[in-house]
């Protein structure tokens, strides 16, 4: 299980960010996998099968998060900005750990773009594998990847400059 924990963690934390929600979706991924073992026929290997479950559950969680934002009217939440900039200049960029900063930037992508970045760029699946996991055409994966990279480049701009000394 430890071998696949890394894979699921990379997928789920990449999609949802660190925290209780990601842990929860991670648990659900394995529970669902164990429950579906009887139906699993070994086609394509365990890793893609687990990844597909993790991505789908993460997308569900993101959908719930979106609905939650719409219906909440708590005074506690009123002061929180909806989206905060991932990197606020060079000074802030140096303050954050590299992984945290990248994850914060990925969290600001929309779920479709985020899932492509996580599968293609973090988990290392090919474009074809990514299209199969997400059940979308290869062209869609490429266009999402293209736009996601543009957004990430903007969000992480200062960090990617030549003169950056993080």
């Amino acid at each position, binding site marked *: 299980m430890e071998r696949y*924990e890394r894979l699921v963690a990379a997928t789920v934390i*990449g999609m949802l960010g660190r925290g209780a929600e990601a842990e*929860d979706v991670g*648990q659900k991924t394995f529970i669902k996998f164990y429950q579906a073992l009887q139906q699993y026929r070994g086609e394509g290997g365990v890793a893609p099968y687990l990844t597909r479950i993790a991505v789908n559950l993460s997308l569900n969680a993101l959908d719930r998060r979106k609905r939650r934002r719409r219906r909440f009217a708590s005074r506690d*939440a009123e002061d929180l900005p909806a989206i905060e900039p991932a990197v606020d200049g060079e000074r802030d960029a140096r303050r954050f750990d590299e992984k945290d900063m990248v994850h914060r930037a990925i969290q600001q992508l929309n779920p479709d773009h985020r899932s492509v970045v996580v599968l293609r760029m973090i988990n290392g699946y090919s474009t074809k594998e990514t299209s199969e996991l997400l059940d979308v055409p290869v062209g869609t994966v490429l266009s999402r*990847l293209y736009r996601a990279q543009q957004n990430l480049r903007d969000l992480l701009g200062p960090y990617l400059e030549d003169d950056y000394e993080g």
Partner: protein
Amino acid sequence: MKDSEMELLLRSFDDDDLDASERRRLEDLLEQSAELRAEEIRLRRLRAVISGSAADAFEPDFADRVMTNVARASMASSRVPRTRKAHDHAADLRHAPDRHSVGRVVEMGERISGWMAGTASSRASGWMAVHRTVWMAGGAATVIVLLIAVGLFVRIQPKTMSVPYGEMQMVELRDGSLVELSGGSTLTYPGKWESGERRVRLDGEAYFDVIRQDVPFVVQTFNADVTVLGTQFNVRAWEDDPVPETAVTLAAGRVAVTPRRDDQKDDRANARRMAADRADGDRLEADRADADRADADVAERLADDRGSRAYDGVSRTDDRPAAAEAYEYDLGDDRQAAESMLSMSRFAPGAVVLEPGQTTSVIADSAAAPRSASIDRVLAWRSGGLAFVDQRLGSVFKTIERRFDVDVEPLDPAIRNRLLTYLNPFPESAEEVISDICHTLDLRYRRTANGYEILPDATQ
């Protein structure tokens, strides 16, 4: 740099996406454009950073918790949910008497057969036949009388309807009034109305649609009486809430909400103390003056009313001036509310009269002044929704427990006192609601065997 050039550059990173001519063109562009070369470096760095940023581990005990939950999930699939236990238990009870009664019927049948066979030889005797007939008729009459008596006894006995957690039930009372009960609620009502009033007792939350009659309808809770003639209203009265209160919200008609007082004398003293604590000196003087002025007015009205029933059956229980009562039970800041209290105080000491769209709550022995309420939110539970407006988390968690039949335990007592406003017309699970709350209030939660534990945010 043109968009087409940027697109070409981005595509070049993916799986040989470029054909030979595109690749040649990109090489030419990179040679010619320093800007594009800088962009390529940035993108390579971006991809390196992202691919190296995989968060590849959960918390240390993740695997143990997964295995525990997998085991629990597999056990749950072979276990009957708690919410169904009441049904199954009821089904067992329904079936159990059947088996017993079948057994008894067979046993009695055998006895009768035996008795009939044993007495067959004496049938020739006419006297014995007459004798037997008389005895049998007498026995039958006795049985019929006993059945009627038992039926009457059962009919007038108080009835109790308890709703299991996670369910809702509707009760139709003898007068045709309807009561919708939320999960965990208990309604006790008499088999036969006592003369002068229709009184029921509620522990929990219910929506009442009362048939109009001359006899008042009274909902008794642990600390209040809600008196009506015919109307629609919601009563929420959980004695086990962290701050027990009876909250009444009126949808249509008119109701009077009266705190229940076992020891009126002590309660008056408490009310005075509470009033003195709340009001500052100047306002107290102003209220006193108002009360004195109103006293004479209400005393005059009382003189007119005395001898007749006030508010259609809710009579005053003593002869104290109404204004004085209102003064004792409402020394709030809102003068309009105080006037409202004065105007209705002719009906019962400490009573609050609600108009449609208003709500009040009785805490301890003191009723708050009427205020506007969102009926939709208050009645959200009837359609399966959850709505909390500035409610303490302690009370919110209790509601979740009753709705979903789970345990919700905050590990830090301070969490119970945090306020929440939350609207969810279609909550799918306890976890969805708890997850919502935790995300909004920066709390964490974890599963337990029967529910959830709520923890403060790790950063606090």
